[in-house]
């Protein structure tokens, strides 16, 4: 469904992304892991059309994405790391705006708002201003905003940062549901247990390059005898990326 091939992006002398390639199939959740500065966010930004790659291509359904107005962007939903919501507006008003950006209007828009709010458990707070929401509720609304136009691909950039276990669990259930409906999910996170629990495949990045792209079992197998059959993803990750502080 989503494929990136040989993506490259530099900022001056800094090579942020260098020849990154991977794919996400329908009904699959791919965990994109990496230390700070590994190039994850830049990769997600290039897929979402926020940053223009210097080389390589992003393809959706086999067709390359090109330009700001490419209609295939409608197949992609972005859930940014920031709470990208208007605090001054109600939940419904936020979703009404984000739906309209994708050309949804009228009855179809109201139905989409209702069903996405229902999915994230905020149907009863539709008319409340976002500024009155807790952090967890804002995270769930952030997810609903990315889902509103029913995209086939969902880009989730650390969607559970700063939420309580209940809201995190609710988000996981939402993602399981979306997977079951055949959506392709790309999920970046620093929480290894989340990737361990949710990801069908794991892409590990560092210094702008892909270090590994495999299932958890495959990563363990690569690590060989030293890691052992029950090695945690965190230990595998540290083995690949090292223990040097990045910040």
């Amino acid at each position, binding site marked *: 469904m989503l494929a990136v091939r040989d993506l490259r992006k530099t900022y001056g002398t800094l090579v942020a992304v260098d020849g990154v390639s991977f794919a996400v199939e329908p009904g699959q959740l791919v965990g994109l892991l990496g230390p700070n500065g590994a190039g994850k966010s830049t990769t997600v930004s290039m897929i979402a059309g926020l940053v223009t790659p210097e080389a390589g291509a992003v393809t959706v359904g086999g067709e390359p994405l090109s330009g700001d107005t490419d209609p*295939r962007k409608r197949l992609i939903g972005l859930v940014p790391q920031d709470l990208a919501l208007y605090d001054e507006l109600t939940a419904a008003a936020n979703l009404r705006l984000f739906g309209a950006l994708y050309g949804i209007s009228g009855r179809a828009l109201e139905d989409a708002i209702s069903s996405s709010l229902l999915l994230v458990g905020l149907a009863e707070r539709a008319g409340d*201003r976002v500024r009155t929401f807790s952090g967890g509720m804002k995270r769930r609304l952030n997810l609903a905003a990315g889902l509103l136009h029913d995209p086939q691909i969902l880009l989730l950039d650390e969607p559970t940062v700063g939420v309580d276990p209940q809201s995190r669990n609710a988000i996981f259930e939402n993602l399981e549901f979306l997977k079951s409906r055949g959506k392709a999910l790309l999920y970046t996170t620093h929480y290894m247990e989340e990737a361990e629990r949710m990801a069908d495949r794991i892409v590990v990045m560092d210094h702008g390059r892909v270090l590994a792209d495999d299932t958890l079992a495959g990563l363990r197998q690569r690590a060989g005898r030293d890691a052992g059959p029950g090695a945690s993803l965190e230990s595998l990750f540290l083995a690949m990326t090292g223990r040097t502080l990045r910040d």
Partner: protein
Amino acid sequence: MTLTALTALVRKDLLVFFTDRRAVILTLAIPIAIASFFGSLFSGPEEGGERARVAVAVVDQDGSALSKRIVATLGTDRAIAVTQPPLNEARASVQGGRMAVAVVIPAGFGAAAVRTFLTQGQSTELELLTDPSRGAEVAMVRGLLTGHVMQAVVQESFTGPDGRLAMEDALKTLDSSGMPADTRELLRQLLQSAQGLSRAQDSGTAAPAMATPFVVRETPVTGDPFAKYNGYAHSFAGMGIQFALFAAIDLAAGILLERERGLWKRLRSAPLSRTTLLAARAISGTLITMLTLLTGFVFAVVVFRVPIGNVAGFVAMIVASSIMAASFGLLVAALGHTAAATRRAAAFVVLVMVMLGGAWVPAFLFPAWLQQFTWLVPVRWSVEGLDAMTWRGLGFADIVVPLGLLLGSSVVFAALAVWRFRWEEA
């Protein structure tokens, strides 16, 4: 789809603007309050009302017929309010800033002034005690004083007692004056004729002569003969533009805040062109700045009876000024980094623009060299155009140039904004 998205983005901006009702009320009320204050300063008297007079102290140390005549004629001038305190009080009033000018008529002034006028004597002095911080009032009083003193000297020289004595003295000393013979003879004839006239007037055998030869009739010149100057029109134009530009800064800060809060990522990830995204902000910015301007003018029309001479031209000026302000906001957003820092820097730029544009005080009060620069400031085109369409009563043709300049500057601002806008979202 583009129209749906464009409408939704504009609607969102308006919703966000109107969400904070207290801020909206302040945004609309503050320019009205400030413009009302400035308008009251520059509007002049109500119809049939008294114009504020400049307080002038006159200290008559001479007590001559001429000095009394000067005091009397100054007292009839509607531009000044004359009092006659002692010298020390007059000096203290000027020194304390309670009075701009004190006129001191020294002893012997009357006789000396008439003598000098009729012959070639040494000019005598009339002392002005002035407050150096009130140059405009001092200049006005100096001008008025010159006129009144000359009028009094002429009348006194030819018809008053000091004049008669001076003429007799002048006739006695004429032969020894050293003038050329023909000039001396002509002056003798003039003085003798004036003596004759003076005696005839004293005995009642001649009609009064030497009256002021003219009176000044002021005719305000406007495009519409029924239009009258209204200082509130200018102050509401100036303050309206100033707060429209402040609203534009809010627009810029809003864009930068959207970027800081990650909202711009969500907007950019949608299949929308950059033109759509910026056009939406330009439209909502134009609508909000237009609301700021129109609210002020509606208040000014209703409360201060500001005349709208040409409705179509007035609307065109409001729209063009609002577009200029909104495109200025886009440029600020394109050049800014953080909302807080940008707000401070842009506020300074706006204050300079409105000051140079004549929004606070009319530009003709500026030094000549500075006035040339003010024509480069779009605020001046807005203020001049709105003045033309309100109290000046001019026609649409008279605002074609300011309209063109405003729209041209909008295009330049918008082009620079598009060029410099940071589109990449890492």
